[in-house]
């Protein structure tokens, strides 16, 4: 009797140790990562890139619509790179269609790889995203919501694990101007994207757009922020040009305006 109990104890201890190891190294479970291809970014990310099969939260840096558009394109670029394999399809759960598909195509998310799902409200959008995640046949799932509590993010995280599908949750600002990222969440990474002045051109015109990319939280790593060039038509980000050139161009910006 006693022997059996100790055996069970040993079993339990071994199980506990295994679980601890799993919790300690979340990156090791999700071996598959998607690097950005930028050393400055990948080196600071745990695992060397965005882990597939987990939840990532992205939000605009401020409640302005410009930052919102930047966050949208950032998400679209990541999804486009997840869906690079042939037949890869991205689901975008929305509650109100204000996306402009030609603009998304210019971030690499062509219309034949994007499926829109229109929901009545945020709760339904999250449920649809969960359905799509658990199905596991999509390359990535995007949901844009205004409200998502910790239970919802936890459900999404588990569904992403089950379906081995990356989940990109676009947290949009509400009218109350309350930061969507101030609530706790189980996301693997949480990003805040804002517009930054673009690289000046030597002639009149708008240069390649720049974003201030801030990683506010990541599991197994430190937060950081960077200034990056917006994604190109394959969804790839880039480091901006060297600083001296930019400083020179910035001085002449006013004369080149319009």
């Amino acid at each position: 009797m006693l022997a059996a109990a100790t055996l069970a104890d040993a079993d339990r201890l071994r199980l506990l140790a295994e679980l601890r190891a799993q919790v300690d190294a979340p990156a090791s479970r999700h071996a598959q990562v998607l690097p950005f291809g930028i050393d400055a970014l990948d080196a600071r990310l745990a695992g060397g890139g965005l882990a597939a099969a987990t939840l990532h939260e992205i939000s605009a840096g401020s409640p302005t619509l410009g930052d919102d558009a930047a966050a949208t394109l950032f998400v679209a670029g990541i999804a486009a790179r997840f869906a690079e394999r042939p037949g890869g399809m991205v689901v975008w759960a929305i509650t109100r269609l204000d996306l402009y598909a030609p603009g998304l195509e210019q971030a690499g998310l062509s219309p034949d790889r994007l499926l829109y799902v229109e929901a009545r409200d945020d709760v339904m959008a999250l449920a649809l995203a969960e359905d799509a995640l658990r199905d596991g046949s999509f390359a990535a799932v995007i949901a844009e919501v205004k409200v998502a509590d910790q239970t919802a993010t936890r459900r999404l995280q588990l569904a992403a694990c089950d379906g081995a599908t990356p989940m990109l949750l676009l947290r949009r600002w509400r009218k109350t101007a309350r930061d969507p990222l101030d609530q706790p969440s189980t996301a693997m990474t949480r990003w805040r994207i804002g517009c930054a002045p673009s690289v000046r051109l030597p002639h009149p015109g708008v240069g390649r757009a720049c974003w201030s990319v801030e990683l506010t939280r990541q599991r197994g790593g430190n937060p950081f922020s960077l200034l990056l060039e917006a994604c190109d038509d394959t969804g790839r980000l880039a480091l901006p040009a060297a600083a001296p050139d930019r400083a020179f161009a910035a001085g002449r910006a006013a004369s080149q305006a319009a």
Partner: protein
Amino acid sequence: MPRGGGWRPGARWAGDGALEKVELAERIAAMPAHQRPPTREMGRRSEAAEHPFKAMRPDEGAPGNVAMRLAVTQAVARPTVLIERTGQREVITSACPHARSLGLVPGMAAAHARALVGDLDVRDAERDADRAWIDRLALHAVRYWTPGASVSGDDGLWLDLTGTAHLFGGEERFCRKLLRFLGRLGFTANVAVAGTMGAAHALARYGGGRIALLAPGREAERLAMLPIAALRLEHAALVAAGRFGLERIGDLYPMPRGPLARRLGMSTVTRLDQVLGRAAEPLVPVVPFEAPEVTRRLLEPIGTPESIAQVIADLIGDLVPLLQQRGLGVRSAVLTAVRVDAEQQRIAIGASRATRDARHLARMFALRMDRIDPGLGIEEMRLVVTRSEPLGATAAATLLPASGHEVDLAPAIDQLAGRAGEAGVFRLACEESDVPERAVRRLAPLGVPQGWPKWQRPARMLRRPEMLTHVVALLPDHAPRRFIWRGKPYQVVAGDGPERIHGEWWRRDSELWAVRDYFRVEVEGGERFWLFRRGDGVEPETGDLSWYVHGLFG
């Protein structure tokens, strides 16, 4: 009474026993109101009352009623023709009797007909709709009249009456019934009954009567005087026959078969043989489609979700072999649950692609199962496939895994559609329009969308353009220097443009001259806007030079 025709009604001598005026008035006053004579009787008796059936004065030459009927016909119905466009020509395909009487015949150019008849009602022929009607009539015939019915050409039906005519009281009564039935639907028809299909075809189209009954064995005699076109010949054979002076079917009878076949083609000889009953011509009947349906009647009424799910699974299990046997897949299906109080509850599912995967079907029903209210119990469940498509065997996998790893998304899409609704799952595709808000259209989830041209476009669009105030800009082709939007001032740092987009005059009159000049501007702080100005800045009718913000670049 004086002789010699001096009689006239109401003459003074005729009023022998007539009452005096005063006495008459008294007697009339004594009567109840409804029995009093009308005023005319009380007035001058000499004036004859108008005969109620007197004919109206006829017009010159024609009896009155015919002329009137013609006038009514003309007032009610304008001559109508149906036209079809072939290349650059518009050709009349059919004409109403009125139009035919005016000399318009099928095959005439529509312009010619319009020139001949001023008040002509010209409509487009709808061949598909006609065909649908004929198909429907054929299916009706199969259900109600005879098992052998098929469509003949664009405008006819063949019914095989063998062994069924007595059910309707003989061939003639059947024909009359048929005409009445079609008359109720608004069709006019000619019916011919003959021993061969070819003879019936010829008589119905060229026989000249509403009903033509031909005794067996008299085809050759009856058809001899019909034109040769009644034989269903090819166009080339008809032209050749015309060249040889062969106009009637009877002209072909005495001709030797060899030279006839050489001159008019073997098919002509075959058609002639078929008409006369010397060669067989089988009828290929239409087969009505029966929707696959399975039913389970339950011994005990059920009410728990588990038991309902079990019955649904059983129904699907019954249905799948049925579909497999017929080579069909489900596009939409309706599940009917009959409760003990005889109320029927229905749930419907739709699949984005034809499927007969039992697991997938069960999952789609499981999403909707909560809409069934079992009440006191369900005693019967029925599953009907309301829309099906042919579904053959598909390859589950290929030997070469590298040759495109295609995932079948249809089950996942169906599941999303089950939650979000049929219209909630879609793709966006290019619509050929330069106006930005019209450049996007929705597409079914499994459609193949086209991309857009590589012009710079924003990521988010405002639902409708919002007006800017206090705009400072150089005209005609510079981006603004500063503007105020939603009460906030913006200082522009750089701008691209203009991209000029003209209005689509074919949609609205107001867009005839409308021009939008789009600019992509970056303001201090890095926000990038997509602005436009109405008008090109030179011509005042192109727009009022007001500025709007339409979208936001990331």
